[in-house]
């Protein structure tokens, strides 16, 4: 091994990895551009260049690059995934899809901040740099192939979001929310790291494919797969899942969610509820796929591993059911709109987890078609969830700008003063419940169908399916309560009213999101399903 061979290897690896990494590199360049613009005073008040403008330009370039990458994966059907940076990251259709998804969500959030005025121009660079840093972490989450990248990505996502939750630093609720979030988040990350250390030591490597191969070898040998080994493995996996469950706000690690969402501004709450959950789901899917191992040899996996994966699937299913139930029940008593949406976020995380649990059950038994349908359901639901949740949080932000309140009782008679916002909220809330013809209905249908098929293999999952359907019915009532206040309850004469006409920039934002919610449920079902199908084909091949 002489230095020349090593350098040639590094050069060839970088020449393929760096172009594949171009969206992330564009984001790094945007961070630097924001800093330099502030340093040289280019973005001061009155100049054409604004921090939001720089951010949108950078994100736009990154978006174009990732759409081109996604196109390469979906068009040429045989393009396999490849490793980036000597196997630290995996570059396949799944990665490309999540990059596009995250960039779209960031574009919508930056648009929302321009409409709602938080942050203002002076604090703009700080906020957007934190937002971009967190997005960079989420993109790494979606492509992680090594335990170090998994932990690094979670930290890169979480730490800027701690600061973003406390961004309105003069307000007492914001500082309290940020403190609780950072304390619990740091603890969860620490526990996850301890689990990673046990797992890496047990399997002798931290590279996910090698870990899967080593796990299969151990499971093959009955002498090795002894009691203590299995217990250590279980403890390590449980600790890692605890860390991921915290990011996904699953029961019983959901307690940070309502406080953080109430203390943060509505834009940041929207970001956390959509983008950070999507990144964490991508990470969970990657981790579960790594535990299952090489897909082509799925029939050769030993029975012990099949049992282990099946149990993980069942446990995830039960956690999903409990999370959805808890989120829906707790939302009933809320009077603050952001807390209600936080509990609704918790419940939706439960629904999306049902898709992952169905995927694990299918994979443990070798049914690749079923697994593909489960992942399709998850991806479709994430896409619809993006527009409907951002729509809801965006409308909350726009109303807050007018009446300076986030209590549901103050939304009375919104339909009279700003019909645009009320109709938008109606569409988004109907989609959150899952009423046709909105996109939420199609997403829920796909996930429940996958869960129903998985229950054929494991009858106990029928209980999870029934709980999911019942929860959808439960959730109808508290969403309808909000709409009832907006449309029917008479307003106090002296209360402030929100007047946002249709022909305004805010109206355009709400209109775009509402139309997207409906379109994903009607016209776009087939194309979105196609993209999801191609993405899952590449993941599982």
């Amino acid at each position, binding site marked *: 091994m002489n230095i020349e061979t*090593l350098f040639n290897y590094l050069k060839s690896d970088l020449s393929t990895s760096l172009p594949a990494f171009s969206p992330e590199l564009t984001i790094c360049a945007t961070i630097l551009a924001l800093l330099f613009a502030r340093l040289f005073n280019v973005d001061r008040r009155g100049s054409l260049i604004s921090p939001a403008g720089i951010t949108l330009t950078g994100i736009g370039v990154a978006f174009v690059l990732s759409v081109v990458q996604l196109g390469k994966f979906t068009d040429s059907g045989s393009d396999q995934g490849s490793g980036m940076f000597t*196997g630290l990251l995996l570059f396949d259709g799944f990665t490309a899809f999540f990059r596009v998804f995250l960039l779209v969500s960031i574009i919508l959030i930056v648009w929302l901040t321009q409409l709602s005025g938080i942050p203002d121009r002076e604090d703009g660079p700080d906020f957007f740099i934190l937002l971009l840093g967190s997005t960079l972490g989420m993109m790494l989450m979606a492509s992680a192939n090594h335990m170090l990248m998994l932990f*690094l990505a979670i930290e890169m996502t979480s730490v800027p979001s701690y*600061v973003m939750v406390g961004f309105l630093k003069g307000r007492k609720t914001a500082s309290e929310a940020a403190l609780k979030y950072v304390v619990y988040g740091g603890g969860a990350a620490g526990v996850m790291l301890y689990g990673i250390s046990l797992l890496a030591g047990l399997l002798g490597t931290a590279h996910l494919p090698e870990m899967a191969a080593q796990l299969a070898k151990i499971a093959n040998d009955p*002498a090795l797969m002894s009691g203590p080994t299995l217990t250590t493995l279980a403890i390590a996996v449980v600790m890692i899942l605890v860390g991921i469950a915290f990011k996904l706000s699953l029961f019983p690690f959901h307690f940070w969610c309502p406080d953080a969402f109430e203390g943060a501004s509505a834009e940041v709450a929207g970001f956390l509820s959509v983008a950070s959950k999507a990144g964490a789901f991508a990470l969970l899917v990657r981790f579960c796929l790594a535990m299952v191992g090489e897909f082509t040899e799925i029939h050769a996996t030993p029975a012990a591993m099949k049992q282990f994966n099946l149990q993980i699937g069942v446990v995830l299913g039960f956690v999903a059911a409990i999370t959805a139930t808890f989120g829906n029940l707790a939302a009933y008593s809320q009077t603050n709109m952001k807390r209600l949406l936080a509990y609704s976020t918790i419940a939706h995380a439960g629904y999306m987890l049902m898709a992952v649990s169905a995927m694990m059950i299918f994979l443990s038994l070798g049914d690749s078609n079923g697994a593909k349908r489960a992942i399709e359901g998850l991806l479709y639901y994430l896409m619809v969830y993006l527009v409907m949740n951002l729509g809801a949080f965006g409308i909350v932000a726009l109303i807050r700008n007018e009446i300076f309140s986030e209590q549901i009782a103050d939304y009375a008679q919104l339909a009279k003063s700003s019909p645009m916002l009320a109709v938008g909220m109606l569409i988004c809330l109907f989609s959150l419940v899952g009423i046709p013809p909105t996109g939420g209905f199609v997403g829920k249908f796909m996930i429940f169908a996958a869960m129903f098929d998985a229950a054929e293999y494991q009858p106990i999952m029928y209980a999870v399916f029934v709980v999911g359907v019942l929860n959808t019915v439960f959730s109808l009532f508290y969403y309808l309560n909000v709409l009832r206040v907006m449309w029917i309850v008479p307003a106090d004469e002296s209360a402030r009213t929100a007047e946002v006409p249709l022909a305004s920039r805010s109206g355009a934002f709400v209109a775009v999101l509402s139309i997207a919610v409906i379109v994903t449920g009607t016209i776009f079902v087939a194309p979105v399903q196609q993209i999801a199908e191609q993405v899952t084909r590449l993941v599982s091949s």
Partner: protein
Amino acid sequence: MATNFFFWLLLVVAIAGLAGLLLVRDASRRTPWLAAFLVSFGVLAVWQSAVMFKDTTASQVLFSLFGAAVCFGALGVVLSQNVVRMAFWLIVSLGSTSGLFFLLNADFVGAVQLLVYVGGTLVLLIFGVMLTASGPYVTMKTSPTEWVAAAVVSSLLLGLILVSAFGVDWQAVDYAEAGNTTTQDASAGSSVQEGTTLRPLGWALLGLRPDKDLQKPGEPSGVGYLLPFEIVSVHLLVVLIGAAYLARAKRRVDQTPGTTAL
């Protein structure tokens, strides 16, 4: 234990000294008894320890000392009621962890632990403790029921982790071939065995792994850590900006156009 004539002599002197110490009422006349007790007991302890542990090496002794310091420091952090004392015990614990790293042939990691963790992060924590002190050494008491509950849960958790981890046959698990459970030499980690990790660490952070043979088929190829090394600098930049934003003084509301916003 070597129980010969000198052992019994020293034991008698120690017991006599202890008896005299306890029975003499006049405090100023206790000194000779105290001296006799301490000297005889000290010689007895050192001699018997040397006999019992005559096969232990210096590294094992150091291992035990540093390990005990880590554990007692951690217990000190948990049991202290005063946050300043907690900070002190944390320094003891983390400094001894660094000693353990040196003993585990991780010289660079041990040095980084002392410089960055103890010398940077803990100093920052002490700053935080001092800046948020609300009164002279406020103690916050926890109730006895909380203590009992914490003790029970923690011993259960500790027992669970230890019982499962101690039962694992680490050598066999790591080097398991399909159907073949013989152990192999850790040829790929020889630099770790010898303790010369500085150069291989440097190479690995640049993306090259001379310790892993890439030509041999079937051998796991090394992962080069260039990407995390560079991307963590972006992360530190973002974190720095976030912390600076939070720590900055609130700006004045009136801004004349053209002035910088700081």
